[in-house]
C-alpha cells in the first residue's frame, strides 16, 4: 500500500515522459519516412511519370533528337575525360598529402576542398576571368589557336575544378592505412621502383581510385552551373545535357526535358551503387 502510494505520486510526470519515450521514436521515424518520401521518392516517381507521360515512343523521340543526343554524348565524353584525369591527379595529390612532409600542407589540403565550398557558377566565372578571350592569358592562347572558354577544353577545365576533391578524399584514407613497410619489403626483395608501384602500391588503392573516378563522372554528367558559364552553350558543339534540359524547360518543352532527365537519372541510379560497391571493396582489403 505504502509502496504503491509512494510510487504513484511521482509517477504522474514520468507517465507523460514514458508516453513520449514510446511515441517519440515512432514519430521521429514517421517524420523521417515522410521526409524521404516527400523530397526524394515522390519527385523521382513524378519525373518518371512525366518523362514517360506521352508514352515511351514520345520519350524516345525526345531523346533521339539530334541536339539532345549530342548534348548527352558531350556530357559523357567530357565527364569521362575529367574522371580519368582527376583519377590520376587526385591520387597523386592524395599521395602527396599523406606521405610528404612539406610546409603549407594544410593550405594545400584546404585548397583541395575549396571547390566543394565555391558555388559552381562562381567556379565558371573564375575560369572566364582567367581564360576568357578578353583576358591577357586567354587572348594569348587564342593567338596560338587554342580556345578554352566557349569551347570544349573550357568544359573539361570547369569539370576538373569542380570535382577535384572526390578522388583525393576517397583515396586518402586508404593511403593512410598502407604500411610503408610493404614498399620497403618490396625493395628488399629486389623489385624495381616500377614493380613496387604496379604490384605493391597500386592494387590496394585501385578500388578507391575507381570509386572516386565514378563519383567524379557522376558529378560531371550532372554539372550545370560552371559549365553553363564557361561553355558558351553552342548546340551540338559545347551544349551539355544539363544545360540542354534547362534550355528546353525555358523554351516550353517540359516533356522533352523530362525525357532526357530520365537518362541522367538512370545513369545516376547505376553509378551511385557502383561507387558504393567499389568503396566497400577498397575498405574490405584492409588488415
Amino acid at each position, binding site marked *: 500500500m505504502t509502496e504503491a502510494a509512494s510510487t504513484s505520486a511521482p509517477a504522474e510526470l514520468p507517465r507523460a515522459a514514458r508516453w513520449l519515450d514510446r511515441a517519440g521514436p515512432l514519430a521521429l521515424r514517421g517524420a523521417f519516412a515522410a521526409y524521404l518520401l516527400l523530397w526524394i521518392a515522390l519527385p523521382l516517381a513524378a519525373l518518371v511519370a512525366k518523362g514517360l507521360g506521352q508514352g515511351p515512343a514520345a520519350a524516345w523521340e525526345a531523346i533521339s533528337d539530334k541536339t539532345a543526343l549530342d548534348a548527352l554524348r558531350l556530357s559523357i565524353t567530357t565527364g569521362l575525360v575529367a574522371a580519368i584525369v582527376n583519377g590520376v591527379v587526385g591520387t597523386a595529390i592524395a599521395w602527396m598529402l599523406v606521405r610528404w612532409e612539406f610546409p603549407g600542407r594544410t593550405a594545400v589540403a584546404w585548397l583541395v576542398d575549396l571547390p566543394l565550398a565555391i558555388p559552381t557558377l562562381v567556379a565558371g566565372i573564375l575560369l572566364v576571368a582567367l581564360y576568357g578571350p578578353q583576358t591577357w592569358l586567354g587572348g594569348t592562347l587564342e593567338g596560338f589557336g587554342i580556345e578554352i572558354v566557349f569551347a570544349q577544353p573550357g568544359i573539361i577545365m570547369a569539370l576538373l575544378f569542380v570535382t577535384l576533391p572526390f578522388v583525393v578524399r576517397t583515396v586518402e584514407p586508404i593511403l593512410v592505412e598502407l*604500411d610503408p*613497410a*610493404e614498399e*620497403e*619489403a*618490396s*625493395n*628488399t*626483395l*629486389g*623489385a*624495381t621502383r616500377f*614493380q613496387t608501384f604496379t*604490384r*605493391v602500391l597500386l*592494387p*590496394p588503392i585501385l578500388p578507391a581510385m575507381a570509386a572516386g573516378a565514378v563519383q567524379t563522372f557522376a558529378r560531371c554528367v550532372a554539372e550545370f552551373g560552371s559549365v553553363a558559364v564557361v561553355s558558351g552553350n553552342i548546340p551540338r558543339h559545347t551544349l551539355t545535357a544539363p544545360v540542354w534540359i534547362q534550355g528546353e524547360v525555358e523554351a516550353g518543352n517540359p516533356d522533352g526535358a523530362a525525357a532526357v532527365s530520365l537518362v541522367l537519372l538512370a545513369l545516376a541510379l547505376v553509378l551511385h551503387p557502383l561507387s558504393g560497391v567499389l568503396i566497400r571493396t577498397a575498405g574490405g*582489403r*584492409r*588488415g
Partner: protein
Amino acid sequence: MGIQVNHLVKSFGATRVVNDVTFTVNPGELVALLGPSGGGKSTILRIIAGLESSDQGEVWLDNERVDHLHTRDRRIGFVFQHYALFRHMTVADNIAFGLDVRGVPKEKQRKRVGDLLDLMGLSGLDGRLPAQLSGGQRQRVALARALAPEPRLLLLDEPFGAVDAKVREELRRWLRNLHDEFHTTSIFVTHDQEEAFAVSDRVLILNKGRVEQDAAPLDVLDHPATEFVARFVGEVNVLDAVDKDGAVFAGPLSVPVTATGAGKLHVVVRAYDLKFWHAEDGQGIATARRVVPLGDRVRVDAEIDGGVPIFAQFPRRSSLLRGVEPGARLGIEVTHARAWPAP
C-alpha cells in the same frame, strides 16, 4: 659470407641514435642485437639493409662495400616486426614475389614456394590471404618470403615481438632449427634477453647507440663488461657498497668482490647468486617481507637492516626456504657478485 660494420654513425635531428658502432658477423653465424628500446638496434639493421642511410661509417658484405647500393641490389632478406606482407596477395604470391620480380621462371618459382611452404609448416595455406592467417603463421610467411630469393644475409627486426608468449617460444626454437639447417648469416634485433640467449650464437648488447659488449651468451651472463650489461642481463640487485681496506660491505652485508681501491661501489648481485636462510634467536641481518611463488621457483623479497631492499630466487623445494616467511629474520650470503666504482 660475412658482414662487417665499421664506425657507423647516425643521428635523427639532435639525437645520435647510432654512435660509432663496429662489429663483424662471420659467415653462417646468428647474432642478436640486444638492448633497451631506443638503443639504436633497429636503425643499425635498417642501415645494413639500405632502408636508412648512415651519416658516417661503412657496411661491407662479402668483402664488397654496399653503402652506395640500393636496397634492391643488396640481396638482403628482411623480416619486419609487423610482417609487412602484401595484403592483396595470397601466401604463395607473397613468397614468390622476390623470385618473380627477378624473372625466375614460373616452374622454378612454384617448386621453391612449395619447398618453403613445407619447411615452414604452411602447407595447404598457399591460397590464403594474409588477413586469414594467425600471427605466428604470418611471421612464418614473412620469413619464407625473405628466404625465397636466397639472400646473402637475413635481418630480422624484433621478429617475434607481435605474437603471444607461447607462439613466441615456439617460433624461437623453430628459427634456431631453421638456422642450423641453412646457415644463412643472420642478425636479429630484440629487447628480450631470453630470446637473444635462446636463439643466437653471439650477443651484441647495445645501449644509447653504443656496443656495450660483444660476446657469447654465457660470457655476457658470467662476465658482463660494464655495469649496464650486468644490470640489464638477468634479474639483479644493485647495492651501494663501500670498500674498507679490501673488504667490501653493503651495510651489514659482506660482498665477495676483490678489492678495487675505489671507495664507493655499485655491487650487482644476481637473484640466484644469493642465499637466504632463517636465522635463529634474533640473529641475521635482514627481515623477510614477501614470499612469491613463481611456478618452479620462489622469489623472496627482504629488507637488509638499514632499509635496503634485496631479493633472491630459490628452487621451489629448496631446504633454504625452511622457516623463511614474512617477518622472519634472515641470514644472507652473497656467493657471487661484481662491483663497479660508483660515479
